[in-house]
């Protein structure tokens, strides 16, 4: 874990330095090229200026030879004078003048056609002694005679300038990269620090401390987002864990109660001699508790099978109103006993696709619940209607369940009032079974307050 983490840090730094170095090199190349181009162009302009000067100083002597009036200069040691290479020839190629710097080497060989005619022709030439020069040529007319003047300076200064410039820049590269690397390494550390803190905290979280959360340093950045996502996950885990814990506690209580009765009834039955009728009563009482246990285990198995996704559904298309009539037909007797009346209303043309048997079981549990908790001589309504879904609503006139408990009534073994429910003979699983029966069919079930009083259970099923 720690190794991987530091690897990411090294990798980040390496990447950062590599990219930075590459950009730096590109920049140096571009800057050097620019410097070279600038120096060359400066040399060219100096040569053009010089050739103009030279043209003014050239003249034919009375003997017909060409001379350059160098005495014109105030400072004969001027660099332009000392380093100048110059050759003057006729356009046909007859050399009229070569200066001393050339030491009688030729400058650029025979002339090209139209050389220097239009403007200042520029080219790079290597002299016999190996010196590289920048040469410009220009045609100039003196005493009606066209003369091709060639003038050049060594490019050595340009090359040296560029190399110096490049060397200076390259010298700055290693320290720059080092600084960038250190900064990047430090930055990677800072970026990864929240991750490290999260990992350290996560290592300490166990099943018993699920209430702990990961530190969120900046809720708006990516790390903060991840921390929030993980915290949500932890919250859901904690929820499931709490549910499981409560379920285990409830289940052991609910399973132990009938076991305790069986045991004490049996033990008391054996304490002394009873009549046959008394024994029958004892055994019957034990069997009743066994039935209760069996029902509870069956119910729990159904729900856990649903939780594990092991319920094989046998979906058919049918009219929910028919299903409601069927359920009320089965359970109407219970309402009748309490003087209650169940009214069924709704659209007979609506269809749903579901496992009919399973849904019937779910609806029966809800209708029975309504009968059980509604006072005698009241009305219970079962309404089938269409909204975005197909809704089967069961409205009773029992005591309205407080809002904060409405989700809980669907939990296994949840009882609003423990003593009352057990008297009514419930296993505490009815609504939990109803919930899974509906959800297994792709629907949902909610509990709302009734219109003026009572409760309203709504089963929502997808439209066919």
């Amino acid at each position, binding site marked *: 874990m720690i190794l991987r983490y530091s690897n990411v840090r090294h990798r980040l730094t390496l990447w950062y330095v590599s990219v930075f170095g590459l950009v730096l090199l590109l920049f140096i190349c571009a800057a050097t090229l620019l410097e070279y181009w600038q120096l060359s162009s400066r040399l060219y302009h100096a040569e053009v200026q010089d050739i103009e000067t030279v043209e003014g100083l050239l003249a034919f002597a009375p003997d017909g030879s060409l001379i350059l009036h160098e005495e014109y200069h105030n400072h004969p040691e001027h660099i332009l004078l000392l380093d100048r290479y110059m050759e003057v020839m006729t356009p046909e190629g007859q050399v009229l003048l070569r200066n001393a710097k050339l030491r009688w080497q030729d400058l650029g060989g025979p002339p090209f056609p139209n050389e220097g005619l239009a403007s200042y022709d520029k080219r790079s030439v290597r002299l016999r002694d190996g010196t590289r020069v920048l040469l410009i040529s220009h045609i100039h007319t003196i005493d009606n005679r066209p003369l091709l003047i060639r003038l050049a300076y060594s490019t050595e200064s340009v090359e040296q300038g560029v190399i110096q410039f490049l060397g200076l820049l390259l010298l700055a590269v290693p320290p720059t990269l080092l600084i960038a690397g250190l900064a990047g390494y430090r930055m990677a550390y800072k970026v990864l620090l929240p991750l490290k803190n999260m990992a350290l905290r996560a290592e300490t979280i166990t099943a018993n401390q699920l209430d702990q959360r990961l530190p969120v340093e900046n809720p708006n950045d990516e790390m903060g987002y991840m921390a929030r996502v993980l915290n949500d996950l932890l919250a859901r885990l904690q929820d499931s864990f709490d549910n499981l814990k409560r379920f285990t506690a409830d289940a052991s209580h609910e399973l132990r109660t009938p076991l305790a009765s069986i045991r004490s009834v049996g033990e008391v039955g054996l304490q002394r001699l009873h009549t046959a009728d008394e024994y029958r009563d004892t*055994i*019957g009482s034990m069997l009743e508790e*066994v039935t209760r246990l069996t*029902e509870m285990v069956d119910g729990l198995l159904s729900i856990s099978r649903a939780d594990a996704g092991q319920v094989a559904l046998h979906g058919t298309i049918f009219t929910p109103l028919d299903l409601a009539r069927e359920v009320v037909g*089965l359970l109407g007797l219970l309402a009748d006993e309490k003087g209650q009346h169940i009214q069924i209303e709704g659209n007979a043309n609506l269809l749903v696709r579901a496992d009919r*048997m399973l849904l019937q079981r779910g609806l029966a*549990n809800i209708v029975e619940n309504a009968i059980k908790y509604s006072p005698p001589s009241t009305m219970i309504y079962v309404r089938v209607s269409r909204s975005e879904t197909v809704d089967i609503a069961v409205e009773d006139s029992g005591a309205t369940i407080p809002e904060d408990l409405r989700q809980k009534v669907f939990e296994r073994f949840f009882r609003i009032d423990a003593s009352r429910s057990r008297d009514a*003979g419930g296993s505490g699983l*009815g609504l939990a*079974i109803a919930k899974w029966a509906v959800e297994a069919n792709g629907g949902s079930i909610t509990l709302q307050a009734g219109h003026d009083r009572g409760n309203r259970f709504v089963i929502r099923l997808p439209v066919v």
Partner: protein
Amino acid sequence: MNILLVEDERKLAEAVAEGLHGEGYAVSLSPSGEHALSSLRHQHVDLILLDVMLPGRSGFEVLADMRRAGFKMPVLILTSRDSIDDRVVGLDAGADDYLVKPFAFPELLARIRALMRRKLPAIFSSLQIADLTLELEGRTASRGGKKLELTGREFDLLEYLLQNRGSVVSREMLAREVWKQVMRYTPLDNVIDVQITRLRRKLDGEFQKKLLHTVRGVGFVLREDEP
């Protein structure tokens, strides 16, 4: 009539065997599939009660072997696995019926009677016990010459109780046979209790001699003498 009970759970096997003895059946026990197969070769058996979770080979495999060996007597599977798939496997392997543990003893008796009845179907036009008569054609019931006003469901319930007169019927049996519900669920038990109470009021209310009795923890029975 001889019943072979193949069950490795000794306590359950002995209890069931004793119960069946009490009903007049001859019962032999086999703790394993191999033992059962050899028993079948040495004695006459009319019906087999077969557990699925046996040591060694499962009840389904044993059943398939029995059918291959040519034994054609009815087989009732007993198992604690109640998924639909298991039912299908059992019936495919050649079982005639399927009962999930823990079962109610009256239910087992009823299933055995039903499997036996397959051999000799009996059709009655009326059923009778003491001074109670049920006319199946006209769906009327009378006691002591006086007509009983029964609802359709009450008549069905009484008919089923009368068909099984003298034997206890459980709520599971009533849910399946009278209410025609494949799946048994808690609310239905309450409905059955209320329905029985109402039937009892009409049937025994004005009469000295009570016919419909509740056997606490087990079910209901229609019989003349007090239990």
